[in-house]
């Protein structure tokens, strides 16, 4: 009986906490939009310099048939490159840690590719790739690949030595050690790579499309941004921008959720401190 009272308090406290966590940022965003709106109205800035939130919204609705396909293209490139980077990064990391010599041989090449700014390589990729879409895919892949690779390598190598000893003691094969010990232990690092890689894939997809410049029917949001700029259609530019950040937020939320799903039952980063 007596114990149920503090428990109820704790759960209602938590609900209040969650409500506040949602309400506070929401109020913040609404407040900023209002300031933006009244700022534009009162200062009389022309819409081709700074459109009001209303103008952006009507551009979003009015140009939906133009912007939405572009969003689909950008989303596709981002997700495909992220998927390839996940498979490639994790797979290559597993390959790298198999032997010290493999690592010595390959890691420097990986680092050189990583530290070279991707925008600088993109003209080359644009020349060699069969289509612009493939070129964008390669650029975004390259950028997302390395954080996943380096995180995964670190994860595979930071296994508790005593656990490794234990596996040796029980005569575990290389394969068993990989499946039952190294890969699960590397999971938190992989998830960090996923979250970073997801954000970078989108950035790279946009930057590469800026570099590509030209576009046909299958152009993405970055091209629509440039195009709106040339045509001085600033409301549409804002609308495209809004879509990009919505895409970014969605990717962030999705990767965070996947990471939570995989780790919440055991890993420190996802545990509430209860001491």
């Amino acid at each position, binding site marked *: 009986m007596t114990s149920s009272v503090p428990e109820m308090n704790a759960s209602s406290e938590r609900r209040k906490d969650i409500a506040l966590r949602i309400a506070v940022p929401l109020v913040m965003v609404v407040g900023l939009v209002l300031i933006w709106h009244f700022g534009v109205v009162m200062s009389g800035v022309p819409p081709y310099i700074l459109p009001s939130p209303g103008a952006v919204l009507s551009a979003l609705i009015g140009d939906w048939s133009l912007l939405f396909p572009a969003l689909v293209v950008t989303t596709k490139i981002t997700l495909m490159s992220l998927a390839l980077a996940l498979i490639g990064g994790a797979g290559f990391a597993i390959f790298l840690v198999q032997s010290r010599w493999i690592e010595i041989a390959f890691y420097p090449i990986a680092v050189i590719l990583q530290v070279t700014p991707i925008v600088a390589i993109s003209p080359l990729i644009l020349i060699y790739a069969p289509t612009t879409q493939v070129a964008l895919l390669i650029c975004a892949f390259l950028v997302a690949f390395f954080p996943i690779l380096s995180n995964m390598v670190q994860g595979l190598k930071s296994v508790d030595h005593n656990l490794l*000893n*234990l596996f*040796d003691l029980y005569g575990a094969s290389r394969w068993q050690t990989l499946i*039952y010990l190294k890969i*699960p232990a590397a999971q938190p690092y992989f998830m960090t790579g996923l979250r970073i890689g997801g954000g970078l894939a989108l950035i790279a997809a946009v930057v590469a499309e800026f570099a590509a410049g030209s576009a046909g029917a299958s152009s993405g949001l970055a091209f629509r941004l440039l195009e709106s700029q040339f045509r001085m259609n600033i409301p549409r530019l804002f609308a495209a921008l809004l879509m990009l950040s919505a895409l970014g937020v969605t990717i962030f939320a999705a990767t965070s959720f996947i990471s939570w799903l995989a780790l919440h039952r055991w*890993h420190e980063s996802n545990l509430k401190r209860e001491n």
Partner: protein
Amino acid sequence: MNAQAADKTVATMAQTRPLVAMDHVSKIFSNGTLALQDMSLTVRGGEFLSLLGPSGCGKSTALRIIAGLGGVSSGSIDWPSSRINSKGLPEGDISFVFQEPTLMPWQTVFGNVFLPLRLRGVSKKAAEEPIMEALTAVGLGDFAKAYPRELSGGMKMRVSIARAMVTKPRLLLMDEPFAALDEITRQKLNDDVLNLWRRTGITVIFVTHSVFESAYLSNRIVVMKARPGRVHADFPLVTASERDALYRSSEDYRQACEKVSAMLLEAMGDAPEGH
């Protein structure tokens, strides 16, 4: 078990065959530390042997060498009465309990205890019975589904013991398993290990810093000397009374503690040997 039976156990043990023998083993680490020098030790089946000595004298090193973790610099480890596998270890006969619980945080208690069997290719279904048996033996039958983070330090240690026992090994190596625990938990786990030892006829090598623990548990005590590590004293500890709560307050126990204490002091001081 009464006093007579205890005597009988000791008597049969003296006759059992050697299980493992360290034969003039030396160990030099890559940094030049001479951790063990010319150490010889024969452990017979069914013994409960405590290994004592000052910090850094090579107890852990000796234990790990017996387990085949990190080879010897000279000398050899012999298993006179076991079939040896390709790694020079008796097939599935050894278990190790480290100073830390060394559990896989991503696995439940059940999954952790399952590990040694899983590595041998035992199916989950076939493993269920021995796992639950091992967990029940350490009083954790109800915690099979819990994750390590949900357990106290003592409970984690008991999971580690259950994992070591689940393969029904002939030799159990324990490296200061209870050093981090409070006195009450420690005494409880001492009794658990003692019960396991009595029930199963297993051989135990138990590294400890505690004179009291060694005098309570073991029927043979080996005291080591440091720099370089070697055996200083090796004597049986035969007591008439059974090892239980009553024994803790008996004259027998007090004398045993005194003897072990004296030997340890001798090993720690630079008094000449045989003094």
